């Protein structure tokens, strides 16, 4: 997979002029190299807003752009209210995008009519967070898993049953014991296996996993993560993996995109982002993870403050209200997504660490020296 030249990239918006979006959001020009040739899913200037009382709007997703390459796993990570789930749902138009484009395998999903959209959705499947409530409690497992085939009338009934048998076996359940039971007879982990089997029935290209392991115990979480890796290899899937747990996302993702309050903060290869986070928010997120090792030094003060409301997000950089390095410029200007190295992008006026030479594109060229790394300081309150 090669990085596309911005000049030849077919759907690159890098050269397109900025256009004003709704709610006063001006779509910033995108950095070269953000989109790749042969990307299976491209999200371009995605904006999702919901109406709120008194004529206000919830800015759930604001000008988010990324792509997912064939066969890779892209992790979408952030705290609650950051828009990661809305992004996943807007891709298949469960939530309708306010503006922006979503291109899947050459088809612009955002421009499709209802029937064409229904057809396209067979190739993008969604796995939900709560495995028990996402299965119909009144139906038997065999019918739940077979339903996609029944709706689309794929194959003869005998062929369908064989497909269902294969899928249920593939996700690690005993078909003969499970097929005639109903979801309440299964544990959360087993229900998630059934959801995965159902998602695989129509041979999807892309599977969007929305917090698939958040509701599970750690031991079961490991089983499901391993299963997702197996299914990805076996069925040639591309995964968009949405989660709030950075360690889980790191384990499964080739690249990771960090979101905060509706905006993309940072995007890059998992190893690189975790080793050299450039956005102060990524640094803070990484520092907040409790490590299961008493010897691990908890040497970074957690960031203060609460996540602001997406109804009235801060101007400029949305993280500025909690950022230890915020300057006047962070209030005045929205930091555009900027290339800071090969495959590395960050939306920050004063990125912390850079993994490579700074790109002259965007605003990075004019920014001052990077801010010093976050002060190492043991909290005085620690026992």
């Amino acid at each position: 997979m090669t990085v596309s030249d911005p000049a030849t990239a077919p759907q690159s918006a890098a050269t397109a002029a900025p256009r004003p979006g709704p709610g006063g959001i001006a779509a910033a020009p995108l950095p070269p190299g953000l989109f790749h040739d042969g990307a299976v899913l491209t999200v371009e200037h995605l904006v999702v807003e919901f109406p709120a009382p008194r004529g206000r709007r919830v800015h759930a997703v604001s000008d988010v752009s990324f792509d997912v390459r064939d066969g890779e796993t892209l992790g979408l990570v952030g705290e609650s209210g950051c828009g990661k789930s809305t992004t996943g749902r807007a891709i298949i138009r469960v939530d309708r995008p306010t503006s922006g484009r979503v291109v899947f395998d050459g088809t612009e999903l955002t421009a499709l009519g209802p029937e064409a959209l229904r057809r396209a959705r067979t190739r993008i499947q969604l796995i939900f967070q709560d495995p028990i409530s996402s299965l119909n409690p009144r139906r038997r497992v065999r019918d739940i898993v077979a339903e996609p085939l029944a709706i689309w009338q794929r194959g003869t009934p005998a062929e369908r049953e064989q497909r269902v048998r294969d899928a249920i076996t593939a996700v690690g359940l005993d078909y003969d014991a499970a097929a005639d039971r109903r979801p309440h007879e299964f544990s959360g982990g087993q229900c998630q296996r059934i959801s995965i089997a159902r998602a695989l029935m129509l041979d999807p290209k892309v599977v969007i996993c929305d917090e698939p392991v958040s509701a599970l115990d750690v031991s079961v979480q490991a089983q499901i993560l391993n299963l997702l890796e197996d299914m990805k290899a076996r069925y040639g899937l591309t995964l968009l993996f949405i989660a709030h747990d950075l360690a889980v996302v790191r384990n499964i993702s080739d690249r990771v995109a960090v979101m905060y309050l509706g905006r993309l903060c940072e995007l890059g290869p998992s190893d690189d982002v975790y080793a050299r986070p450039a956005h102060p928010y990524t640094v803070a997120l990484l520092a907040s993870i409790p490590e299961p090792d008493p010897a691990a030094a908890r040497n970074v003060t957690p960031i203060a403050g609460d996540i602001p409301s997406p109804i009235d997000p801060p101007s400029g950089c949305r993280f500025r209200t909690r950022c230890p390095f915020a300057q006047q410029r962070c209030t005045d200007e929205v930091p555009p997504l900027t290339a800071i190295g090969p495959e590395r992008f960050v939306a920050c006026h004063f990125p912390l660490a850079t993994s490579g030479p700074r790109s002259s594109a965007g605003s990075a060229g004019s920014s001052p020296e990077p801010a010093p790394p976050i002060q190492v300081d043991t909290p005085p309150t620690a026992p």
Partner: protein
Amino acid sequence: MSLLHKAGRLAFPDVEAPGAPPLLEVDDLHTSFRTPLGLVRAVDGVSFTLQRGRTMGLVGESGSGKTVLSRSIMGLLPRANLERSGRVLFSGHDITAMRPRELRQVWGAHIAMVFQDPMTALNPVVRIGRQITEHLRLHLSMSRSEARETAIALLNSVGIPEPRARLRSYPFQLSGGMRQRVMIAIALACGPKLLLADEPTTGLDVTIQAQILDLLAAQQAERYMAMILVTHDLGVVAGRADDVVVMYAGKIVEMGPTNALFSDVKMPYTEALLASIPRLTDPVHTRLSAIEGRPPDLVSPPHGCRFAPRCRYVQARCTEEEPPLVEGDTPGHLFACWFPVGSITTRGPRPTTAAQSGPSS
């Protein structure tokens, strides 16, 4: 049990005399529920002691009995269909033998609890201010204005901005992290000697979780309280607890000082639990070592060691005899295993795919 502390002296010093009983002593506690399917043995023979000023991490997966244990300690479980034996001694007084009236004097004033979900634990139609001051007025007999000023000081100490204005807020007007701070302020209001924190950060975001855990640690150190931190996350206890108790299927399977336990894990369950956590230091796409199968049915738990059906080191003896909780080489480090980690060199094969057997009955 008299209420010795008065308003304005919430952070009372420890005046524990030498030779006094430990703050909390749990002795062979059994808690079972009668259900149509049979007797569910949620807590099955648990014993430990907790001294003042210490933090104990109580770790287990869902269904391990950690929440039932913490509620048994507090005497919070409904009495219908409950079978209980064993003793819970709080400063030498048996909580299990107390009448509801006596319990009400203990709750809030001496033992307090921070619940997992602050939205459902707080009363949604009562302002924050009254939810805090009602404890102060009841237990400490404060006047209205005294209680109000104390409530403001409490909200301030748990890091709530504009505490005076917040007294008039309803719970829904606060974020999840702020609600949990209010819960903590309520729990701390009467200066309890023991704080039970039942999954206090489970519904919270990771940056907020770090704030709340730091707040609990700071308040605990300042007030010299004992704290039981109930969690499913070994990461949370590793950095915060003095001692760790690991539960599995209603029993303590391993306990000890945090550093000793983490550096020399003896019980295969603890080892497997630690191994199943994805680490930031591992390379991308590292295969996780999942624990096969699922926790046992607590109505008819397996014979012998309850972890035996899922254990990679299982031997014949494990399914025949139940291992007792015994002390190993390190003082204070106890585990219940016939063949602790490191004692057997022949390891059973570890399947690479996570295969689960049929559904539950």
